[in-house]
């Protein structure tokens, strides 16, 4: 099927039932059906039919305001492939009108290691020196949030333990990710440790780059394809059976490489083979069913799980993160209402559309406060920073952590007892 047909069939699948309305964070926040999935499907159809112009702000503003969270997809009985429709439409729009400056800047940095590395190093410096925390406090809303997000990525020094493993579950290679490795390196190290402890052998995949998700979502398909090819080659060289991703957004993108490169005869088969090997870290860990000694005696932390959209709705991985958290003996899970709703992070959305993003974040923070949790666990760097930043700015004592970090801490405790 070519991309035209795919778009047309996807749009036609919508029966206007409206089931997606209450699942859409931007509809709930902006209260206009133009900012709902059903409305956006109608707008995308009008664009595809050519009955409206690609430079009509009344149309594009609402497509720009979409988080791409795909909460509508898991609510839709008719199987409207919303994420695919949006990506295709944005790719077409990108040809017809300029991408906003902030977005262009961020995308350009992420596509160039020589810009990205120093940028992240600078960010770590701002974090370490306390500058980020200071600015998060003193700057007004729109300007303070980025610094609050950065400040929230700081981690208490973890107790490092040395995992033992027999590698019986086969070989894995970790997609380290740009933001994950740049700002959450400790999460990557924790992931590596628990992978070994659950019987996985680790392989290196040098030469891997940004996954391209930010680019694909913004309509810059060409750059996403370049990045995908480099990643495919790097992981082929690693020889790993499984490609493990601990960042939900990157995982969703990697699983879609087959579709991204479907038009490229030289790469389509390799892309599909790559995609078939990609697993979210929680999937791999839950399948290994780690059994940790229960610590009825030790202190327990109340943890609420918030599902990253690209795990819950795009990858449809729902239970494994909960299994990972349950395996961590120090964790006491508490329920979080609306945990399947987007936090407003959505890639670079919170940088490009700070106002809508913060309106989407507000109910999330309220639900977290109501849950009584001490820690919010979520497996995506964007969500960790968005929720973490929101918590920092609201002066809440709750912290945002990756589930794998908590599992790692469980192991560290067990190791201490040995």
């Amino acid at each position, binding site marked *: 099927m070519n991309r035209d047909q795919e778009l047309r*069939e996807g749009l036609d699948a919508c029966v206007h*039932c409206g089931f997606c*309305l209450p699942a859409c964070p931007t509809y709930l926040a902006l209260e206009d*059906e*133009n900012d709902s999935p059903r409305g956006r499907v109608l707008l995308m159809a009008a664009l595809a039919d050519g009955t409206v112009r690609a430079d009509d702000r009344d149309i594009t503003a609402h497509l720009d305001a979409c988080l791409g969270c795909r909460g509508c*997809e898991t609510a839709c009985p008719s199987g409207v492939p919303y994420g695919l429709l949006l990506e295709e439409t944005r790719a077409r729009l990108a040809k017809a009108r300029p991408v906003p400056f902030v977005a262009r800047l961020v995308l350009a940095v992420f596509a160039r290691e020589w810009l990205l590395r120093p940028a992240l190093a600078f960010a770590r410096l701002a974090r370490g020196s306390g500058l980020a925390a200071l600015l998060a406090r003193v700057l007004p809303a729109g300007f303070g949030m980025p610094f609050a997000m950065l400040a929230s990525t700081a981690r208490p020094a973890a107790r490092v333990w040395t995992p033992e493993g027999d590698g019986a579950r086969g070989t894995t290679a970790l997609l380290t990710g740009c933001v994950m490795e740049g700002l959450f390196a400790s999460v990557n190290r924790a992931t590596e440790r628990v992978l070994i402890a659950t019987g996985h052998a680790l392989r290196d995949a040098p030469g891997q780059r940004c996954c391209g998700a930010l680019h694909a979502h913004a309509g810059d398909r060409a750059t996403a394809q370049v990045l995908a090819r480099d990643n495919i080659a790097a992981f082929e060289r690693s020889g790993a059976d499984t490609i493990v991703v601990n960042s939900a957004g990157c995982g969703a993108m990697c699983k879609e490489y087959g579709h991204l490169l479907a038009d490229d005869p030289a790469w389509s088969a390799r892309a599909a083979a790559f995609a078939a090997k990609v697993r979210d870290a929680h999937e791999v860990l839950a399948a290994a069913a780690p059994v940790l000694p229960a610590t009825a005696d030790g202190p327990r932390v109340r943890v609420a799980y918030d599902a990253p959209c690209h795990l819950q709705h795009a990858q449809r991985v729902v239970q494994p993160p909960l299994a990972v958290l349950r395996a961590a003996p120090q964790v006491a899970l508490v329920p979080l209402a609306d945990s399947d709703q987007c936090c407003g992070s959505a890639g670079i959305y919170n940088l490009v559309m700070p106002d809508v993003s913060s309106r989407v974040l507000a109910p999330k923070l309220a639900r977290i406060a109501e849950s009584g949790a001490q820690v919010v666990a979520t497996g995506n760097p964007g969500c960790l920073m968005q929720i973490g930043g929101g918590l920092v700015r609201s002066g809440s004592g709750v912290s945002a952590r990756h589930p794998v970090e908590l599992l790692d801490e469980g192991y560290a405790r067990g190791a201490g007892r040995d």
Partner: protein
Amino acid sequence: MTPLGPELRRIVGDAHVLERASQLLAYRSDALPGLRRAPALAVFPGARDELIAVVRALAAHGAPFVARGAGTGLSGGALADGVTLLGLHRLKRILALDPEARTATVEPGVVNALLTRAAAPHGLHYAPDPSSQAACTIGGNVAENAGGPHCLKYGVTLDHVLRATVVLPDGEVVILDRGDEAPGYDLLGAFIGSEGCFGVVADVTVRLTPDPERVITLLADFTTVRAAADATSRIIAAGILPAALELMDRPTIEAVESSIYAAGYPRDAAAVLLVEVDGAAAGLDDDAAAVEALCRAAGARGVRTATDPAERARLWQGRKKAFGAMGRVAPHLVVQDAVVPRTRLAELLDTIAAIGARHRVRICNVFHAGDGNLHPNIPYDAHDADEAARVHAAMGEVMAACIAAGGTITGEHGVGLDKLPYMERLFTADTLDAMCALRDVFDPARRANPGKVVPVHSCREWHAAPAARGLP
């Protein structure tokens, strides 16, 4: 006088008035497939005072308007043809919830399922559960007198609304009350189901129902649709009142099982019955056993009982999302709604199947069997002119068969725009006149939801010229 747009902007703010055609694209349809009407303007009040001011401004301008909740209506009721669309979806607060009195007062835009979610911690729920409950609003439910699977036992919206504050089309605010001892005519009863033609609901006080002590959900599968219909009659005849009794035929089962809401219905069954019994724990197992025995006696191949709440939820999700799931079968869909005497259900299903075969269209049945409320739906491709013509011919015959069997043309989706042509097949000119007279009590200027339910001008005028309206 200031033009309408700027005046409305002053009341609700710029962001909540849409006037350009490309801003109004998304508001040209509701959930009724195929029908589109472009509003001239859309306005979304965010508070009760704003709502009242908006309606008064509309009245001052003599401007007709159409109320809209979530736009899940299936009769085109929320379509505004060149007039103002008044969206109530921003009025979404639960104003009060009294677990002792078992009542809740809500704004009209509150989503049905969210009211039940708010009541759940108190062991209560809002009983009317249209399949669209995850999205539709209480205001829309009141306007359509919505029903749902569990209305077989618990009654429809009408049975659960105690009081409503209504903004009449001229801007007057009235309270329609139905306290047990309220004397006089039941104006609230007249208002419920008036499809937005009598005024705008500003708030509603509803009854909340205690959750049953226990629920047993059964899924019976049959090798013929007739046997499933027969089982329905046997269950009711035996004096059992299930909480719900729903029938789905094979094309529906296939659509659901291919969707994200796959419920585990047997794909090779000709029909399944979803039966739920609930109430006090004592004796409920006997009811379930009796239902199972009656299904088997009618020829059920198997009867399964949901073993845990998760399975029960899955079985219901499949049913409630069935209509949406048909979207994956073909690009377009006709959704119908008719009621027939329950005793003639089996016979009518045969007739419907024959009509489908004759016109070579694929009719999917999914309906409230316990109430005899049929929903024959036809997925099709509207780009294929020949198929579209056959679909519409088949639907016309199906509706005629239902009327001939002593049934009626809508059970719960309302008349709206879609069923207008059937009204005079069903009612005499005198009856339609009486309906107009009732409407005049609430909306003498006929500005609220013009052109819906009963005719645009005078009933007699309309009745005199049926041919002009292209009856199917």
